[in-house]
């Protein structure tokens, strides 16, 4: 992280905000902070100046493991050929109600 004698660069945190009760936390952006507490306070000041949130998560960007867009097709391929997982796969006569 910081090198002694050099200007200390704060690590990057990703910020997730719950807009209101009943909604998931959603990624809104990132910021730099020295530690998680500071990240949380900066996230409040930066991303919720107008009541945009009721809850915030911050997580260090280098702790996130992400799928790679280069592998998008093979990675998600297993769900591509399972049409029977969708309700429209099943033909039901029109006169059967509520299904």
């Amino acid at each position, binding site marked *: *992280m910081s090198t002694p004698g050099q200007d*200390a660069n704060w690590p990057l945190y990703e910020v997730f905000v719950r807009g209101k009760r009943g909604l998931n936390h959603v990624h809104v*952006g990132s910021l730099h902070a020295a*530690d*998680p507490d500071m990240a949380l306070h900066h996230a409040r000041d930066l991303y919720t100046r107008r009541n945009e949130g009721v809850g915030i998560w911050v997580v260090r960007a280098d702790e996130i493991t992400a799928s790679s867009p280069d592998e998008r097709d093979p990675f998600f391929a297993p769900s591509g050929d399972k049409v029977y997982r969708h309700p429209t796969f099943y033909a039901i006569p029109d006169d059967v109600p509520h299904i």
Partner: protein
Amino acid sequence: MTATVEEQFDQVVAHDRRIEPRDWMPEGYRKTMVRQISQHAHSEIIGMQPEGVWISSAPSLRRKAILLAKVQDEAGHGLYLYSAAETLGVDRSDLTNRLITGTQKYSSIFNYPTLTFADVGVIGWLVDGAAICNQVPLCRSSYGPYARAMVRICKEESFHQRQGYELLLTMMRGSQSQREMVQDATARWWWPSLMMFGPPDADSPNTAQSMRWRIKRHTNDELRQRFVDMTVPQADALGVTLPDPALRWNESRGAHDFGQPDWEEFKRVVGGDGPCNADRIAHRRAAQENGAWVREAAMAHAAKHPRFAPFSAPDQPDSGRPKVQSGGGSA
């Protein structure tokens, strides 16, 4: 399925979908995005200064609170944009260095001085008005993180413009000298505001490529025309005269004809030779240097008080959830 990465990129752009950070992108696209987003971020950060100097001299507590909130928003806009730039693999402190060493530019508009409190109102009305014209189409820019930052910014710019216009309306209802201050500030900021859209299309070599990549949606001249057409009735309602003898409604075009700004002045100011360029950079550099010990102390504190041990003890099972912070609301 066998499309090359370049064909995939072209298709995403052509279908008006968004390019996301880890997607393959042409090197020119990445460079253009880094340059555009970071210069936009620098503009927001430097843009705090012209109005910031009036915070301690605001004429009432109400105006001071409004101005503080506005300048804080400008800082926020800069940070949203630096955050978007970093998704392209650049480092924020490196961008700051490029700003304070003058190797990256920012909008020429912030190199003009704010002489009276009417300037605060005119900046909100004209400068933020021009910024809105420029920025609304960028909400549909092809680079996802930039477009999303612009959505946030545009929501907040409307407050900026309205508080400025309301400030000017209030001054126009005041004394004769206050009305003269508004007229004077309008005359000084009008031409620099028109320069905010960039050089005429004929002298803007990057526009065509940026429009092909859907980074830009309209040409400089289209946006400038839109701004003039929007602003003329606002000037009438305010009771000020825009300082352009060539400005008149053109019935056949259904738009206003207007004169050209002094493009030589624009080149000089962008090139570093404007009224306040040296002050703006010196101020930003001083803030960076004077804040260095704070950043270092915060890192030293964080190193002394690690929140999470590298390996958590077995009697503290990890819930897999972010820890709830005091004062941070419920996770």
